[in-house]
């Protein structure tokens, strides 16, 4: 087990390095010097526009979205005491996507910009509540995954329906965006739209560490250790929904980050769910930045979706986890 502070420092350095790489890599093929000059100084040139209005918001969103997904994944797993709990897999992301699509297609988002993240958040809250209701306080794996599949399928179907009924001919083709997510051509408009909600989510989830640690011993023991479970549950639901809802509203549903990152980092924090929260947030940011860079390197002209890359890494791991969980008799 690594020293916890050292781990956080290392992860921060990694995030900073990937953030830099994200700023420097792009189809315009600017040199490093030109890029940095354009980012920090200069006015009105094309390179300045590229750096400040195209690459900077994209890299920032990568950090924000990754941190949100990593954090909410770690928090959900800690609360449900189940390593398979992931916003994407259990249908929270697809429900948020449904909310976002409804906001866009009804024209609500065009009237009030905030309607987009708010509706996504509402979708996420509903699905989390539904899951907690179905899977129970201690999310037994089978129930959790089955409930997740049902919620995902239902939300996905309604999303497709809304897009198919749209008067806009391009909308139907965008089911894939809402299911796989992308950061391409996101702008500061999206950053400002998502940031307040994500920040709210971070503020709600970050202090849960102690409660989640205590929950290692079960609900009863945690309650007897002075943890107010009702409050914890409320913070968890709202925090996860804010993080995931805001993320999905601007970048679609990127899956598996909340699964892979906590899983990889859990041994490094000695299995402690509380310490996993900040570590996962940083790790999530790193993974998302890396995945976004990969989409640009693998197929620069094709707008490869983020979710494709994260799923390529995440899905095999998911299968491995199911196999392991089954062997340990948690089903």
């Amino acid at each position: 087990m690594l020293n916890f502070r050292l781990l956080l420092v290392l992860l921060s350095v990694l995030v900073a390095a990937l953030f830099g790489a994200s700023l420097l890599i792009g189809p315009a093929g600017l040199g490093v010097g030109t890029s940095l000059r354009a980012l920090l100084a200069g006015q009105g040139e094309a390179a300045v526009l590229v750096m400040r209005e195209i690459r900077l918001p994209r890299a920032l969103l990568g950090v924000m979205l990754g941190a949100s997904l990593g954090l909410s994944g770690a928090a959900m797993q800690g609360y449900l005491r189940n390593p398979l709990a992931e916003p994407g897999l259990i249908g929270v992301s697809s429900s948020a996507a449904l909310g976002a699509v409804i906001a866009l297609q009804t024209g609500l988002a065009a009237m009030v910009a905030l309607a987009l993240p708010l509706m996504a958040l509402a979708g996420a809250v509903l699905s989390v509540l539904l899951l907690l209701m179905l899977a129970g306080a201690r999310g037994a794996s089978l129930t959790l995954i089955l409930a997740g599949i049902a919620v995902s399928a239902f939300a996905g179907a309604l999303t497709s329906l809304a897009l198919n009924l749209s008067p806009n001919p391009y909308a139907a083709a965008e089911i894939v965006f809402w299911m796989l997510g992308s950061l391409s051509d996101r702008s500061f408009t999206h950053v400002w739209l998502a940031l307040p909600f994500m920040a709210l989510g971070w503020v709600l989830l970050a202090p849960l560490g102690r409660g989640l640690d205590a929950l290692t011993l079960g609900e009863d023991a945690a309650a007897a250790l002075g943890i107010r479970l009702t409050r914890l549950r409320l913070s968890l639901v709202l925090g996860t929904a804010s993080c995931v809802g805001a993320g999905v509203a601007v970048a679609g549903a990127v899956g598996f980050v909340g699964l892979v990152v906590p899983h990889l980092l859990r041994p490094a924090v000695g299995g402690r769910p509380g310490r996993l929260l900040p570590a996962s947030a940083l790790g999530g940011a790193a993974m998302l930045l890396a995945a976004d860079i990969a989409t640009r390197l693998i197929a620069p002209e094709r707008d490869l979706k983020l979710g494709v890359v994260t799923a390529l890494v995440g899905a095999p791991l998911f299968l491995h986890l199911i196999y392991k969980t089954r062997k340990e008799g948690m089903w």
Partner: protein
Amino acid sequence: MVSLLALEKLTVRRGECPVVDRISLSVAAGEFVGLIGPNGAGKTTLMRAALGLLPALGHSSLAALPVATRAHAAAWLPQTREVAWPVSVETLVALGRTPHLPATGQMRAADHAAVEAALKRMALEGLRFRSAAQLSGGEQARVLIARALAQQAPLLLADEPIAGLDPAHQITTMEVFAGLAAEGHAAIVSLHDLGLAARHCTRLILLGQGRLVADGPPGDVLTGANLAEVFGVRAFYARTEDGPVFQPLEVVR
């Protein structure tokens, strides 16, 4: 003597049927109370209701406390031995310090000392860096007891803490609880091994169908009539040079 727990007509209903029926009792410092009764007599429910983990009618001095204060007054060891994540033994025991930590979660000298004492008391020093996920069932049970000890609450409530332990560890664990009581704490422990209960507890509380049937020193509670009525068994009970000996013999119903 300081009363650590006072129950007044505590009642828990499941539907119309009372699972715990108008139980009044009080536990003072220095007592090691064995909570006995057949399956479904309401032992677990009584303890959880007393802690305020279940909605109940009547009054419980613990349940009346705010959640954070209650954690300083009583420690609770549930029957299900749940360890959700592969944390180290030391980390797990340190969870018992949760109510004592400041907002930052930083462990201080007193906290480290309490964890050390708990590990030592349960003879777990050698396992401290082991992952809790790799322990045997018995080891895990002892680690969880150590966790409850580290909480250093005046009152410890434990639900069948010695189930599944080997005889040596059953005896040492009972001695740990008795030791706690001797130090001026108190323990309420539910158990099915009436022999161990008779030998180690200072007081037994016998529950039958949610009602308090008998409450007093082991010799007064484990009478033939009580055993026949509540457990439906006949037993051998004697005070010997080695202390009281109790052995159930046959079913009488």
